[in-house]
């Protein structure tokens, strides 16, 4: 550490410095947050792309038109 990490006034800390102090100071925290973040990212990315796809194709998807073909009550197969 060539520069002190402590800041005289923590409320005036730049955001990047806050990121550094929170995530990077311990390698264990850095690696863990990468993996947990990747897990969260893969879920949110999938949700976001799926939501976009369903919004883009609204009215054409099976779940939108299945009422026309599947009568509730007398289910075939």
């Amino acid at each position, binding site marked *: 550490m*060539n*520069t002190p*990490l402590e800041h005289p006034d923590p409320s005036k800390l*730049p955001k*990047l*410095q806050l*990121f*550094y102090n929170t*995530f*990077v100071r311990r390698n264990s925290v*850095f690696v863990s*947050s*990468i*993996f947990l*973040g*990747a897990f969260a*990212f*893969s879920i949110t*990315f999938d949700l976001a792309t799926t939501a976009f796809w369903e919004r883009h194709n609204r009215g054409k998807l099976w779940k939108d038109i299945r009422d026309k073909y599947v009568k509730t009550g007398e289910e075939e197969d």
Partner: protein
Amino acid sequence: MALSLTRINLAPSSRALASGLPVSAVNHALKGIQAGGHGSGHAADEHGHNGPRKDAIPSWVARQSGSMHVSRAVPRSTGIYQPRYFSTSARSLRETTSIPDFTPYLAKSPNTNRSLQYFMVGSMGLLAASGAKSTVSDILSNMAASADVLALAKVEVEMSAIPEGKNLIVKWRGKPVFIRHRTADEIEEANKVDIKTLRDPQADDDRVQRPEWLVMLGVCTHLGCVPLGQAGDYGGWFCPCHGSHYDISGRIRRGPAPLNLEVPAYTFNDDEEKLVIG
């Protein structure tokens, strides 16, 4: 001197005027050398009819000074060529060492740069881990059996074809599957066993969906032989290869096998009185 190299770049012997006409500046001088000093006869020479080419390299240019020599005279291009004898550009007279002021671009503190670098490294790792996982799982799901193959890989068994207390062996995905219609006594016997004493503790309820129907893969968990039904010391199955005894719930009781007989995925189709394995 064993080897001498002589290279001569000749001055441009001709150049083009703006009108496109070639103009020769050197011919007169060369002509004087080659012609041996008498510079008369201009009128014939300028049309090039008089003797060899006037700007040919004279023989005295290649100096003979040893056992071997290489002479290479490179005449300059005779095309459109504008030699520049001195610079008249005003730009070249300016100071060339003025350095721009980079201080607005300097980082305010080295911490900012370091934090930004770690942020980029972390983001890159995050995206790379997520992308690697997606890539690998997509490739592996390509290798998995597709839904139509899985649909064909099911076996349906008529439940009414198996009377109580009888075994049926069907082939499913190349492996034998034991189906036993158990009697009430056998169910009671299977439930009576203290599972803490078993090698692979498993309650009978965990191995069957309906107590009267026992469905198991007929592959001995020791080395993969097919056990014999209604045999062995525990009234269940007996593997003739190395003597593993399974009880009426297919649990290993004695012998070298480490695990109970495996239970495949199966469902009951009550409408058609069928047992669907797979």
